[in-house]
């Protein structure tokens, strides 16, 4: 019988040498290659300038700019936001300077900084999206286009494009047709649909080079003092860690159905491990949105954390991790 007093530690293994390995973070989104897969989410980083005060935005895979419309737009009245459990609601109403000012000030800024720009566009009609894409065609420094189709279609009783496969496809076809072949077009999907896979199919059939998901979930909050909606816009978009499980599910389902279509994943990513979760589900890049509000340094931190997480798990290449959660179990 062994002596129970004999519990002094005998050193059994030498401490492991510190991890020095690195992981090739390069990722491909259709025709383009990005040095790493961590992006900002549209509407959560403006056009990069403000974040550049906290870290070098050229260190990111790309900056996805706030959805831009044809004309300047004032957005909705305030209050425009409400904090919710592990999330927030926003109802900004796509405030922005319009495509002209964007092309004059914002895009050149990112280019000068050496940052890659994924330009998000939004419109109220197929014609508006078409015109936006046409204007972007000549512009220097557009790495890719993300088409925000979570906008009401003015010609169909305000039904949001992203909730109607045909309308979504019409927008994608138009944008794809107008854009330079070297510039991939990503359609950004809404989770507020009965069957996101069928919308994904429609967009890809219409020529989308990739898909971004998820946009915010439609939500709402009431103010318990005024007993009225908190947001001036009544409903708003729910984002943040609260929605990550919905994002993972959407990415998983779409990647399973369309394994060759690159996905930019977003929804509740706040750490490198969150980013990895979306990647394992099938995302080829990950956008960081609401987390920036809580931590302006989040995108770059997440890039570093993701690299560490990949190295820890023995991935020499980021691309090997994309969709790895779907592998057959041995």
């Amino acid at each position, binding site marked *: 019988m062994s002596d129970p007093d004999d519990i002094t530690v005998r050193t059994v293994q030498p401490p492991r040498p510190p991890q020095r390995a690195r992981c090739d973070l390069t990722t491909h989104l259709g025709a383009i290659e990005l040095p790493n897969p961590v992006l900002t989410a549209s509407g959560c980083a403006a056009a990069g300038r403000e974040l550049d005060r906290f870290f070098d935005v050229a260190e990111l895979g790309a900056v996805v700019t706030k959805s831009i419309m044809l004309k300047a737009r004032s957005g909705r009245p305030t209050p425009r936001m409400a904090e919710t459990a592990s999330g927030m609601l926003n109802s900004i*109403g796509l405030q922005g300077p319009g495509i002209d000012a964007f092309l004059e000030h914002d895009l050149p800024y990112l280019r000068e900084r050496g940052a890659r720009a994924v330009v998000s566009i939004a419109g109220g009609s197929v014609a508006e999206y078409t015109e936006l894409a046409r204007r972007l065609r000549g512009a220097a420094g557009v790495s890719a286009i993300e088409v925000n189709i979570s906008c009401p279609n003015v010609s169909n009783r305000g039904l949001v494009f992203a909730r109607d496969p045909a309308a979504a496809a019409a927008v994608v076809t138009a944008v794809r047709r107008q854009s330079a072949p070297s510039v991939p077009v990503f359609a950004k999907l809404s989770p507020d649909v009965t069957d996101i896979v069928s919308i994904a199919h429609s967009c890809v059939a219409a020529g989308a080079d990739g898909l971004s998901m998820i946009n915010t979930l439609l939500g709402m909050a009431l103010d318990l003092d005024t007993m009225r909606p908190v947001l001036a816009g009544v409903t708003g978009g729910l984002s943040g860690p609260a929605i990550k499980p919905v994002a993972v599910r959407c990415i998983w389902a779409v990647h399973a159905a369309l394994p060759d279509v690159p996905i930019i994943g977003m929804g509740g990513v706040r750490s490198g491990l969150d980013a990895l979760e979306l990647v394992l589900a099938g995302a080829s890049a990950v956008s960081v949105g609401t987390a920036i509000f809580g931590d302006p340094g989040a995108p770059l931190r997440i890039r570093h954390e993701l690299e560490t997480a990949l190295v820890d798990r023995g991935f020499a290449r980021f691309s090997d991790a994309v969709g790895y959660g779907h592998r057959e179990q041995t």
Partner: protein
Amino acid sequence: MAEGPLQVRGEVLATRRVGAYRHLTLVAPGIAARTRPGHFVALAVGGPDTALTLRRAFSIYQVSTQGVFGGTVELIFAVQGAGTAWLAAAASRTPVDVVGPLGKPFALPRDRVSATLVGGGYGSAPLFGLARSLRSRGCRVDVVLGAASADRLFGALEAKRVATTVEVTTDDGSAGTRGWVTDVLPAVMERAGTEVVYACGPMGMLRSISEVAAAAGVPAQCAVEESMACGIGVCMTCVLPVVGEDGLTRMVRSCVEGPVFLGDRVRWDALGTVPADAVGAPPMSDPDE
């Protein structure tokens, strides 16, 4: 002086009660040296497993660049909801991520002018550093402090040390004159020969102060408080309608283009709306984000 905001991992040095408020001192290296009166900080609240996702904005009351702590930042705050309750309860040494200094601070006059500073509730907090800056430039400083009740007045005694005169009002008359700051402001301004007004407090108060200043023909620099999600200019939640140099109204971000605005530039009557004549208004459709 170094420019622009920093993000630093600070920690709570001390919290103490001051009337209805808390006086919080944070160790936040580097921020003090960049701070000017009117700047604010945005704090992450709630700790590691928190459900609170957004930053909380607070005016900087005062800073210290020296000492063993590598720089401290002091705030005066009221407990409103979960975030401020957490801050109030945070023990000494609790880590707090601090972003700052943020926003456009008060503009200081080039000349020796007579400045009148008006603070409502905790809104007086940023005025003391301002008063010292103004005094060091040889300005005359008069202070008017107002609050709902005596326990919500902040800094009346301190005001006396920096100001030529100090006037106090409370809604309920529990301290000073019963009434609003604007009840006494015209008389103070006349007496002081006010050439510029600086104000910080609730929106309704700022509006009235702007009117009083406009009537007297002097500029009013107002530090506004709009609900903010990020505090750094990326989310577009903190907008209010402001008239630009070109005479056009735009919805501008109070976190980067403010919080200090000229009172006659802010469309106070249109707060919480998008005026029909604002650039890009009204939206023809209402897209979700």
